[in-house]
């Protein structure tokens, strides 16, 4: 029971830290926004890949879909905004413009929605496959999504990402968008982690056949987890489109980063993906930012390979082995009963 407040305290501390950068490090907001998006991506991948045991190797497809859907909506909303924005006469006019253009952030939930609907349609097919086939099928999904989205206007038009919202020249708004999404995601997944649903999802990972036999609505649970994951990934994609970054990571890089973050941190836990996201972000910014994208991708791939071979349970797994007390799960697996009958009866009476 002592662990529950510690979890919440740590979470609140993390969120509080997120409030600091706009005051202390305004120059780095674009980069730091990416950190929050990393956390969103890691947590949402982990739900399907770590908690449920269905590694979705092509999950970046939802990121791409969310990015394009969100951008297309924002481009459509931007047109009337541009018409309304004349020379600003006084602060009142500027405020009105800002208010009328705030609808642009609608692109983010819209991106999530499109990803969710796609997941719904595809999940009916893909989730009926055993998980190794599912993993390979998602690879095909990512491949196909990349092929089909290369000719969309959101990639080719001059208004393509990043969409700069009129009236806000500072990078604050994109940072707040990313941080806001991360707050929502972290809170939601912390709640989910403590919920019973998470245990039923773990049951799918541990022994799907047994779960079906004892009556879990396995297909329904799989669909719920898969669509939730796609929703958050899609929103992350749509938010990503609003970040203006000099060298934005490409889709393949995001795709492998999602898997790497979770494997690095420790799949199937709450803090694993978060720690993995922070660690990967740190490594990426401090060590890899000087590299060309091709080399960066190679390093990430090598890291994934090494982590899979040598650190299969991630940082959390390593910590649990060496420092079991603070890091073990709140509900440890039941220990084998070693008490005698009389001992048990005595305990019961006391």
């Amino acid at each position: 029971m002592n662990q529950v407040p510690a979890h919440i305290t740590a979470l609140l501390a993390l969120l509080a830290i997120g409030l600091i950068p706009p005051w202390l490090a305004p120059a780095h907001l674009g980069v730091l926004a990416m950190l929050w998006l990393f956390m969103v991506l890691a947590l949402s991948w982990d739900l399907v890949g770590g908690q449920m045991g269905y590694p979705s190797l092509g999950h970046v497809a939802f990121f791409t879909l969310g990015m394009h859907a969100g951008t297309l909506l924002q481009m459509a909303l931007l047109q009337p905004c541009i018409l309304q924005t004349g020379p600003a006469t006084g602060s009142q006019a500027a405020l009105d413009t800002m208010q009328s253009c705030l609808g642009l952030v609608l692109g983010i939930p819209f991106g999530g929605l499109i990803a969710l609907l796609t997941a719904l349609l595809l999940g009916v097919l893909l989730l009926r496959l055993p998980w190794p086939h599912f993993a390979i099928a998602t690879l095909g999904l990512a491949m196909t999504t990349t092929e089909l989205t290369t000719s969309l206007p959101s990639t080719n038009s001059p208004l393509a990402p990043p969409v700069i919202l009129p009236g806000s020249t500072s990078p604050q708004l994109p940072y707040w968008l990313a941080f806001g999404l991360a707050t929502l995601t972290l809170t939601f997944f912390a709640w989910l982690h403590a919920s019973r649903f998470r245990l039923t999802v773990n049951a799918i990972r541990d022994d799907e056949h047994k779960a079906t036999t004892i009556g879990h609505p396995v297909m329904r649970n799989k669909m719920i987890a898969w669509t939730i994951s796609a929703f958050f990934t899609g929103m992350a994609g749509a938010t990503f489109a609003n970040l203006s970054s000099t060298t934005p990571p490409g889709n393949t890089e995001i795709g492998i980063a999602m898997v790497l973050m979770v494997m690095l941190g420790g799949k199937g836990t709450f803090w694993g993906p978060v720690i993995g996201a922070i660690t990967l972000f740190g490594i990426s910014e401090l060590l890899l930012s000087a590299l060309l994208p091709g080399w960066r991708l190679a390093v990430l791939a090598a890291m994934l390979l090494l982590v899979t071979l040598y650190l299969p349970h991630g940082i959390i797994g390593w910590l649990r082995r060496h420092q079991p007390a603070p890091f073990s799960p709140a509900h440890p697996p039941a220990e084998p009963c070693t008490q005698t009958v009389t001992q048990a009866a005595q305990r019961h009476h006391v």
Partner: protein
Amino acid sequence: MQDLQLLLLQVPIANAQLLLDGLWIGAVLTLPAAGMMLLWRTMKVANLAQGELVVLGGFVTLLVTEAGLPPLLGIPAAALVLAVFGWMLHRLLLWHVIGTDMISPLLATFGLALLLRQSMIAGFGPDVRTVENGLDILFPFNALVTVPQARLLAFILSVTFLLALWLLLRQTAFGQTIHAGTPPPCPSSHHRDGNGPDTERARAAIMAINAALCGVAGALLIFAWSIHPHMGLPHTLRAFTMAMAAMPGSLAAIFASGLGLSVAEHFITFLLGPGFQLSAVFLLLLVVLFGHRISHARKPGHLIGGQAP
């Protein structure tokens, strides 16, 4: 719609062209598919880096031709280099994860695939590469159909290599234990998972054979078609689809499914358009996966995630 009318009514000979195009390349792609089947049967591993090994074989052949040697020498060169590479891959890296659970080899080969791809882009550039084969084009059927000699040769060579593999599996002691589906000699006790050095050596040999098959396929591809580093993933998916369609079949079944799927892919790409080639690969993958699941579900006593690959 228009394309469909073209095929069915107006220019029926175009069907023959698509069919032949599909057959030539299908035979070549059967080799990595056979490798996939081999790996699955013996180690329960789906190698997601299979396509990258194919492309690597092609690049070995490129180096051979750039050294001034005849391009056909690239075939044994690729086989040899890739065999050694496959052996090293197992002994140095993959032995950690093969035989433990099923998710680790998947993720490990996923990372490996990307690493190989980026290395090839760094080493050879991201462009499409091909090799001058110096061969002619045939024009059968009154010049309505074109058959490049190089592709015909690639077809014949692929069939030859498949036959050689079949002989290896049937006639040698090592091959027969592979064919039976169990890794060769007995494990000694003090290794990980009770797998002794003999088993690990046998597994490395199987990975070497698989890599050699991919290398030969890559050599034939660059000889008669072309390669580029981003082709790895589609080839992996194609190999997997062909192996799945033939599961749990013989080499003959793989050959038939390989040809059939390749021809189907050509027809679908023709009907949908060249910008949909990868979508065609994905579509066929889904069709085969679902066909497999439906046919498995009909068998009594079917378990979810049971012994299906």
